[in-house]
């Protein structure tokens, strides 16, 4: 099958899958080499930039998924078929700590944040953004936590190594900037989940 035939087929597969689709699964279903699938994906990506589409191919959680272009978000939200996650600051902070430091225990999270994090942790578990990895082999055998596939999907990350780089502290921003920053980051976002960015 040449690339002109293969690209639309790969597009259809990614389109029809109910989550990010892995290259090896496509290769298996088509009985082809993974390199062939990858070149079809590349062809699609070029095609999407040459002739703008409503969506793009995103590499996420070890697979590929079609997602709408971010600049259409306002219109799509108006159609109102989706209820976005809204993060409180504690939830996002705890999630960040878990994402970067996994496997991590509750007390490690709390030491870093300086506040009790039990209920936030429970919510993150319920939302399946965080999972119990097991127990740490230290006295008391505390549970250890890590992030899930859903976490990667939500933030559009191919894997954990794609997390934004943790910036070492260099210079604290002047207070005015900081105030402006805080003003931009309300504790809870408004009704339709639009944070003012």
């Amino acid at each position, binding site marked *: 099958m040449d690339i002109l035939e293969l690209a639309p087929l790969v597009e259809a597969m990614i389109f*029809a899958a109910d989550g990010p689709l892995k290259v090896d699964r496509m290769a298996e279903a088509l009985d082809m080499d993974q390199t062939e699938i990858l070149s079809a994906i590349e062809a699609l990506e070029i095609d999407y930039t040459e002739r703008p589409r409503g969506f793009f191919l995103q590499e996420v959680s070890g697979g590929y998924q079609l997602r709408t272009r971010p600049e259409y*978000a306002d219109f799509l939200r108006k159609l109102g078929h989706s209820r976005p996650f809204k993060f409180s600051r504690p939830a996002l902070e705890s999630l960040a700590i878990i994402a970067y430091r996994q496997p991590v225990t509750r007390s490690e999270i709390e030491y870093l944040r300086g506040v009790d994090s039990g209920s936030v942790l429970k919510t993150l578990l319920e939302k399946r953004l965080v*999972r119990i990895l097991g127990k740490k082999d230290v006295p008391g055998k505390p549970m250890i936590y890590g992030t899930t596939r859903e976490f990667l999907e*939500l933030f559009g990350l191919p894997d954990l190594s794609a997390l934004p780089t*943790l910036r070492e502290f260099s210079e604290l921003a002047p207070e005015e900037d900081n105030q402006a920053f805080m003003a931009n980051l309300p504790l809870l976002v408004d009704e339709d989940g639009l944070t003012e960015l």
Partner: protein
Amino acid sequence: MNIDMDNYAIHLENFEGPLDLLLHLIKKNEMDIYDIPMAAITDQYLTILDAMKVLNLDLAGEFLLMAATLLHIKSKLLLPKLVDEELEEEEEDPRAELVRRLLEYQKYKEVSQILDIQPRLGRDLFTRAAPQPEVLEETEAGFVAVGLFDLLAALKEVLKEAPEQFVHEVNMEQLSVKDRINTILSCLQGKESVAFADLFSSGLKRNELIVTFLAMLELVKLRMVRFMQNTSHGTIWLFPAVVLEETGELDVGEDALGYT
């Protein structure tokens, strides 16, 4: 340093915790985080705590704990430095741990703000929502990722409805016993018997020995194994009381379901 509370208009609820508040004070006063003026920051911190008329009780404890820490560090700094001439090393700065925590916290606070503005599925990006039932058949091969959390939530749900006497804590020891039962049964599979001593391989810790023993007793109670001895003081043998299934070839017919 004078503080004018009106200029601050600080609400504790706006801070994630004491570390967040301290970072705010450091930035506001353009203090050097590596050389925090403890007297000034402690004063400001305490003034703010005092000014808070309504405190969330849970939060208060954590903010107060930090107040105690600050006072402790401040007092240590006031003590004359002990210079031990024999030991070249200097004592660690009493502020060191606090500084480390502040720096770490700052990192995660900042990156969580970056994460917040990343294009997010369901907020900024959308995937295809409509199902395509005519094409994809549900054949249920693999597993949807379920977490331990789901399993626990399911158990909790069952126990809520379940008859009283079954509702008890499932503790770690019981779970270890269950694990051991599983192992012993695997050892017995396809064998006529196993020597008692063989199940207590050397190197087992004391609590592991106990767990193994409890597992055996449980199996006897369940009438799944029998203990036998040829001579008194001779080797004790474990016999499966019934034929143990080969797990490799599960027969999942009706008779596997226990009511035959």
